[in-house]
């Protein structure tokens, strides 16, 4: 039997059979895996009802969202009951032009003339509202209490960019938008850029050039200028800065607190420092429990106990990450080199000194790099947790999104969040380099 096995012919045959079996297996594998993925995605396609979603998707929402991110609109509103005309940026109270004033493309008077540019002229007359659309003609609409909105068009057929019914008329052109109802006439004109980002209309510094601002700042108005910018009622720069600070604070307190709590506990979970099996086991289960319960549940429990706010968010991060850090730290402790500790012991050092000079220096680089990595990742978590516990930029962001109105503010917050996370990434990378030496070439 043994002689047969060494026979080169059968041996080759057996090898070949082996090889082809392996090939078959691999071939099957390389078809089966994509096929399985495809089957799973098909299941998901129906389970998540993608078809229904495509029909449900709201294109208008998407368009207004995208338009709002880079532009703003000015509303010129006429109250059809008393004829009063007001101009307001984004239609907001905070962006309203003072009584009797309007942007320079609007001429207030008995007949208000609104020039949308490119020959689009809208007039608010004492009775009738007209819109002169170049290439189409003059549209007239007369709102009245008894007969709805009486409309006159130059052509018999109403084009599709006009949405007309008995009580409402809406005209959308590339220059802007006019809506007339019985109670109200409103013109939207779109402009590129974020409105009133630096100063609102109520501030004396609105509309000043950069040079003039600088010269006024040198003449002792720096504090006033700063104050008007910081307390801008529309963009709330001061509050936004606070919120960003709060989010970073949550991440910082949570991460560092978790590290401080986890370090002593990690000694209890490490094989070479906790001789008692039961203690080790209990500590490890405890870490596992903290991680398994998950930040979401901790957040819910904590917000019941501590109320809403940044402290709750910080504690939620602290508790979850104590579990993660405990596990990682105890693994790092199990990997320490015994020789250094023995060397310290040979000089007659007490246990505390042995830990301080024999153990801590060995695990510091691992600890620091993990803590710094978590600090960065927790900045992101703090945004999400903040949305639930009501603190920081996460809350402002969700509120701005839920009101579904000011997408430019949402864009602003998103940009800030991305910058914040990238800044934390850079800082933690820089600190890691400073404290541990360049770890980049270690992996």
């Amino acid at each position, binding site marked *: 039997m043994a002689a047969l096995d060494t026979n080169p012919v059968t041996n080759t045959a057996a090898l070949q059979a082996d090889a082809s079996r392996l090939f078959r297996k691999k071939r099957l594998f390389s078809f089966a895996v994509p096929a399985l993925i495809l089957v799973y*995605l098909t299941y998901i396609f129906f389970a998540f009802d993608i078809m229904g979603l495509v029909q449900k*998707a709201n294109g208008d929402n998407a368009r207004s969202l995208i338009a709002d991110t880079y532009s703003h609109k000015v509303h010129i509103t006429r109250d059809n009951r008393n004829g009063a005309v007001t101009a307001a940026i984004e239609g907001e109270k905070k962006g309203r032009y003072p009584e009797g004033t309007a942007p320079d493309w609007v001429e207030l008077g008995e007949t208000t003339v609104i020039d949308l540019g490119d020959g689009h002229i809208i007039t608010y007359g004492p009775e009738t509202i007209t819109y002169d659309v170049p290439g189409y003609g003059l549209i007239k609409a007369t709102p009245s209490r008894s007969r709805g909105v009486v409309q006159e068009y130059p052509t018999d057929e109403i084009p599709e960019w006009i949405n007309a019914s008995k009580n409402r008329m809406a005209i959308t052109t590339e220059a802007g938008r006019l809506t007339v109802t019985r109670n109200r006439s409103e013109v939207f004109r779109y402009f590129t850029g974020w409105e009133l980002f630096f100063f609102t209309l109520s501030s004396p510094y609105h509309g000043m050039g950069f040079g003039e601002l600088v010269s006024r700042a040198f003449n002792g108005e720096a504090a006033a200028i700063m104050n008007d910018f910081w307390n801008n009622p529309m963009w709330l720069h001061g509050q936004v800065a606070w919120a960003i600070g709060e989010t970073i604070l949550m991440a910082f307190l949570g991460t560092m607190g978790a590290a401080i709590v986890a370090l002593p506990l990690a000694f209890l979970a490490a094989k070479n420092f906790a001789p008692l099996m039961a203690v080790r086991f209990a500590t490890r289960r405890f870490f596992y429990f903290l991680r398994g319960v998950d930040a979401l*549940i901790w957040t819910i429990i904590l917000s019941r106990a501590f109320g809403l706010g940044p402290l709750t968010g910080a504690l939620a991060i602290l508790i979850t990450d104590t579990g993660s850090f405990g596990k990682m730290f105890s693994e790092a402790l199990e990997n320490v080199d015994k020789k250094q500790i023995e060397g310290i012991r040979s000089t007659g050092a007490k246990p505390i000194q042995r830990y301080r000079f024999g153990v801590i220096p060995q695990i510091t680089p691992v600890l620091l790099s993990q803590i710094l990595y978590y600090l960065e990742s927790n900045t992101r978590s703090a945004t999400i947790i903040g949305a639930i516990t009501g603190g920081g930029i996460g809350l402002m962001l969700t509120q701005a999104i839920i009101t579904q109105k000011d997408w430019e503010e949402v864009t602003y917050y998103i940009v800030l969040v991305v910058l914040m996370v990238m800044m934390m990434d850079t800082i933690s990378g820089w600190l890691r380099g400073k404290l541990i030496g360049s770890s980049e070439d270690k992996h």
Partner: protein
Amino acid sequence: MAELSAGSVSVNSIQNSYMEQVRRKRLYSFIALIIFAALMVSGFNTAAARNGGSFWGGIDNFFDYPADVVGEAAEKFAELPAHFVTYFPALVETVNIAAVSTLIGALFAIILSLLSTRGLAKFPKLVGVFRRAMDIMRAVPEIVIALILIFILGGGPVPAMIAIAIHTAGALGKLYSEVNENADLKPVDGLSSVGATWSQKMLLAVVPQVAPNWLSYALLRFEINIRASAILGFVGAGGLGYELKNAISWGQGRYDEAGAMFILLFLTIVLFDQISSYYRDRLVHGAGEGGH
């Protein structure tokens, strides 16, 4: 004699300068520690001041809510299995969101990582562009994308799925490109010499080398994504998180259901944690040796 004294002088000066260095280092460490402690204390107080409830007040009733939940769940213990059945579909949705987003995210991460690894990139000049793109994908928190998509697409699992997939693509892409950097380039050169296209080279020369590591990272990510998908459900993206939000904001009476969901979520996280760490171990250390 002169030489000797010169020697001792230099030893002294070396010792002095060494001690000086040690002292300075200790001083710096001490200052850093003080600053750190001050930051912690002031940060804690600031956070506590801006919080709805106080810290010490909260500590006292920390266990109230869990006790209420556990109490009510224990009281209605017989109903728990029924709750498990009720919320199982929601749990499946949460896990599905995590699984699909990991899958799609990983596929994109593979492409992005191959395009952003020096030596493998198809367009070497665009390596920096793809890296920046991944940085941004990683930096945008999932909740932001999810909420915007909920606005456009309406509530449901898809916004959460897309949001997590984008983040996953960025996060895994970075890890994958680090793995790719360690791949041996000889097979790639071999395939180039027989005129293989870029995708053939990647598929046949790079993927077999790095696939185990890719898979292992993807499994780890799956674990993280289950948690993320539960949290996103809480802000309106469907799944168990959404049911949980409804149950706990229902006033007082639905603690037993909340308790059932806590248990479901905990068990799911623990289960997938175990499965993924078992397979990760096998992938990294090889199947033959088993766990360590």
